[in-house]
């Protein structure tokens, strides 16, 4: 137990260091920018004195390491600057749009994890069968598909040709007036369920299908491949033979005994696929007009809104590092043998 606590502390310290480094990177990038942030803030019609005043206000006249210090201090206090485009605090922009992106991410990753592991396990158990071949092709295709292309493809097939699912936004705009969603968590699916807003629930669910599936393609392929590979190795181990020799039911042997041993590397891949999912949200939100962080970032990129860009980047990095930390800890918890150095 003590070893585990020690490990957790070490990892936390490491993560903190990494985040520090990342903040330095984002800060440097923001300052490497050729144009003058102050000028951008005040606009193209400002006079020289206004630009100068803005520059002082932003602290741009101070030496670089002082600027960094202020940047860091502000960031730790939750202040990531003011968006040039919207003139509102970046943090606010982020928190407003976060639930939307999180919901999409959660939906996509759930589909990916569930089906990825299921397909991986089944395909390993049925190695050599047509099902196995199908799953392998399917996973390979999944990791080769450009997310933005898949999104467009799904739009053509499921909206244009079949008309099954909508392709824009999170919810039908008309519903905003007829069946408004009470904002509790910001997650439409949860909020509508909890308030028994069935009409809105169905609509929100329908809207999330195509984007979530698009997002899930790459991670699902990755997870299925990794699960299959690990399961194959595990299923050839002695202890599986022992379990079968003592009459343990096959589905239990595969689904519990073997699976628990395969989860380690699968968790690792989960962390990796989360990275892809994060970048995938960019494209998915863009193409499906999903009002989340991704859309906000793309707009910021277009408008060259540096505080926003850097803020979101730092935020995404923090999130990613945290998730990886959790994944690592989960791995250690699952496998009692993992050396916690």
């Amino acid at each position, binding site marked *: 137990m003590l070893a585990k606590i020690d490990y957790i502390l070490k990892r936390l310290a490491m993560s903190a260091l990494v985040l520090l480094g990342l903040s330095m*990177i984002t800060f440097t990038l923001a300052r490497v920018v050729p144009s003058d942030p102050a000028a951008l803030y005040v606009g193209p019609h400002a006079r020289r004195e206004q630009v100068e005043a803005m520059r002082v206000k932003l602290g741009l006249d101070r030496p670089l390491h002082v600027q960094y210090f202020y940047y860091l201090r502000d960031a730790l206090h939750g202040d990531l600057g003011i968006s040039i485009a919207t003139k509102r605090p970046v943090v606010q922009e982020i928190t407003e749009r976060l639930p939307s992106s999180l919901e999409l991410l959660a939906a996509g990753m759930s589909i990916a994890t569930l089906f990825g592991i299921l397909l991986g396990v089944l395909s390993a158990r049925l190695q050599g069968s047509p099902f196995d071949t199908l799953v392998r092709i399917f996973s390979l295709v999944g990791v080769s598909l450009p997310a933005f*292309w898949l999104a*467009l493809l799904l739009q053509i097939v499921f909206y244009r040709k079949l008309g099954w699912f909508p392709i824009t936004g999170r919810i039908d705009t008309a519903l905003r007036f007829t069946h408004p969603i009470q904002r509790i968590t910001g997650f439409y699916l949860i909020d509508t369920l909890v308030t028994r807003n069935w009409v809105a629930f169905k609509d929100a669910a329908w809207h999330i299908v195509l984007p979530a599936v698009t997002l899930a393609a790459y991670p699902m392929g990755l997870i299925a491949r990794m699960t299959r590979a690990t399961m194959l190795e595990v299923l050839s181990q002695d202890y599986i033979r022992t379990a079968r020799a003592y009459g343990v039911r096959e589905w239990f042997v595969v689904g519990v005994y073997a699976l628990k041993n395969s989860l380690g590397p699968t968790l690792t891949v989960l962390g990796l696929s989360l990275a892809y999912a994060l970048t995938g949200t960019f494209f998915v939100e863009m193409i499906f007009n999903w009002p989340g962080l991704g859309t906000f970032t793309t707009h910021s990129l277009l408008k060259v809104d540096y505080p926003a860009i850097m803020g979101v980047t730092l935020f995404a990095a923090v999130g990613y590092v945290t998730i990886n930390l959790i994944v690592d800890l989960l791995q250690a918890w699952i496998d009692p043998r993992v050396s916690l150095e």
Partner: protein
Amino acid sequence: MQISDTAVGKDRTPAPQRLSHRRLRYTLHVILRDPLALFSVLIIALLVFLALFGPWIAPYPEQGKGRTDVPNRFLPPSREHWLGTDQLGRDVLSRIIIGCRIALQAPTVVVILAVVIGAPLGALAGYFGGWVDNLIMRLTDLFLAFPSLLLAVTIVAAVGPSLTNAMIAIAISWWPWYTRLVRGVTLSLRERYFVEAARSIGVSSGAIILRHILPNCVTPILVQATIDFGTVILAEGSLAFLGLGTQPPAPDWGLMVSQGRSYILDQWWISTLPGLAIFVSVLAFNLLGDTLRDVLDPRQYR
């Protein structure tokens, strides 16, 4: 993923196989037998061929490079234009063919850069250990803590969009993978007797690394690089799609998908076909990489 060492670097990993002539011949033998592998090699050969000779093969080379023909825009696939024309009347097939050159350029540059930067660092880290290892590993952790595409996006956003900047940005976020890979191999080789023997007769560390360690890294690097080719095509296409890579009117496949997006529902061929090109290319490299891995590196370096 990025910080735990349990997957890579422990001494239990067996040494990769050296790339000898016999192994190459065996690889070729396997590829020729496996229909999927054969398919992937053919596709890649086609891509290389088109990249080299595209301008002479494309039916409308000038349009491929950007010349517009607005009266003929939005033409569906037909005998004159096998894949139709886009919103500015340019022949889609020609643009895809000419685009091969760009599509293959990025992965080549990126992979070479990533290997040149990453591999030596990995060898140094693995061989010397201690603070060198620590330093390099923390550095890779830093870069790996970022989803690679996000890092690339941020860099390009800062320095300005262009193909060159995109390539450099992707390379910057890519090298850590090779460092980890080579470090893992180095660690498993460092304890072997032949290295100890070489050291005991006074061979310098540099020579050991160059002559004993790095040659053994060729196969895993080759496998990884093949797969990475596909992934970088994807990454570069994604950046271009976002407007952060190649700029118009270059026939970059990702750019073409993005430009045709508004017309997706009716003039589907403008976006769909370049996207298909990306997909098939990535698929081919992934397939080949998988086959190579099965042949050259049965104990996989995950």
